[in-house]
């Protein structure tokens, strides 16, 4: 059982017997007023998104999901293939089920696949993933618009801003929850 104060982005809860994941979360407390927990929730089966505002007295059931450790193999068009490392069983997720996680999926990455009623429905990435920079422009010092960062493209096609000392071919750690650069990986 979760309390309202446990709510946060990424938490999976059950509403009307269906699993939902919180995709956006905002804690609000208008001056001297009561705490309000504003959530954007995605139905993990249908993909439908709903807005809900909860109060501190509300409680929540955890989503009844089974999580299995699996390895990402490859994708073919709209389908992404994963393999269970214990029994070598393979499963497929559609690209809308993978969502933004595709930005950080590299071959052989270990992830968690969520099952509901024995059906694979979603993916949870490790918080930090190491990815290779495949293209980076040299940093133009004095470019006041971009400040102390420059854009690069990663091996997955994902683009983000990094400090100027990151070069093409470097490996960097990315926080998969925010999509932001964390550090350079020392080889």
């Amino acid at each position, binding site marked *: 059982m979760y309390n309202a104060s446990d709510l946060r982005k990424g*938490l999976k809860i059950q509403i009307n017997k269906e699993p939902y994941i919180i995709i956006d979360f905002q804690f609000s407390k208008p001056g001297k*007023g009561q705490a309000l927990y504003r959530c954007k929730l995605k139905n993990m089966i249908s993909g439908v998104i709903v807005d809900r505002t909860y109060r501190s007295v509300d409680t929540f059931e955890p989503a009844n999901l089974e999580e299995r450790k699996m390895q990402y193999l490859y994708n073919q068009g709209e389908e992404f293939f994963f393999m269970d490392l214990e029994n070598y069983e393979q499963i497929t997720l559609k690209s809308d089920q993978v969502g933004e996680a595709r930005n950080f999926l590299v071959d052989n990455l270990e992830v968690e696949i969520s099952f509901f009623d024995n059906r694979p429905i979603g993916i949870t990435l490790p918080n930090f993933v190491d990815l290779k920079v495949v293209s980076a422009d040299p940093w133009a010092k004095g470019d006041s618009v971009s400040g102390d960062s420059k854009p690069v493209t990663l091996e997955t096609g994902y683009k983000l801003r990094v400090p100027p000392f990151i070069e093409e071919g470097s490996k960097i*750690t990315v926080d998969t929850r925010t999509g932001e650069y964390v550090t350079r990986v020392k080889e």
Partner: protein
Amino acid sequence: MLPGSKNNSSPGELERLAGKKPALQLRAKVLQALRLFFISHGYLEVETPFLIPAPAPEAHIDAVRAGDAFLHTSPELCMKRLLCAGYPKIFQICACFRNNERGNLHLPQFTLLEWYRLGANYFELMKECEDMVNFVSNHLGMGSKIKYQSLELDLKAPWQRISVQEAFARHASLSMKEALKRESFDKVMVEEIEPKLGSPKPTFLYDYPASHAALARLNKKEPGFAERFELYAAGLELANAFSELTDAEEQKKRFEKEREKRRREGKDVYPMPERFLKALSHMPEAAGIAFGVDRLVMLFADTPCIDKVVAFSPEEL
């Protein structure tokens, strides 16, 4: 361990902290400017204890227990005791602690600036807010036109003043009266009104319904309203102020009500702050304000997340 987070420790600790340097330098400058402003305006800086036996009993503010005592949720009660004893202009900048408050705008430990003035009312504090924020902005070399999260912010006084009732009429889908009846005042405030306040000029939202002000004086002409205001800049709530309630009997009744609300919701019920109530019986007319220092730094740092303006969030400890 947070629900939903995975057990791998955070890399890049050094880079993360180093990356906060511009924000922490800005924070230090804001603190210096605040002290300069209040000292040059004849205020005495005071320090009151963090560890107290009885925090103000307010329905929606939860204190952190520390042994047999509590960490203060604001320095309000002790500062008012000083005010009653003949300290006419005082300010304090200190850490405050509130349980169950965590979000992009909330930390369970945060920094408040409070100041109190004898013989003043809430409208005079509005003027002082205008002067103070402009002083800080000039001290930072940022002038009177800034941007917060791509919203224009023009700090030049006078700022916008709008009553709560007017704000409901202008921005909400129902009237204030109706919202109170349906117990959705807070929800409508957060969802429909707050996002529209404070741009291009910061906004003072004033005259709250009497039910929404545990320590404020009621308006003499319209006793359904309390002389209280909140300050918003570009949607961000910065401060709460009021003409102080100076009637000890009335204050005790209101505290009883707030304690009853807490009891009904199954929350911790705090002891009655007896010494404060006793002091209140000889408090002259005064006004006081609590101003969020972290939020003020967020405004000048142009960041939507309070974590960015403190060295460590609770999850990073």
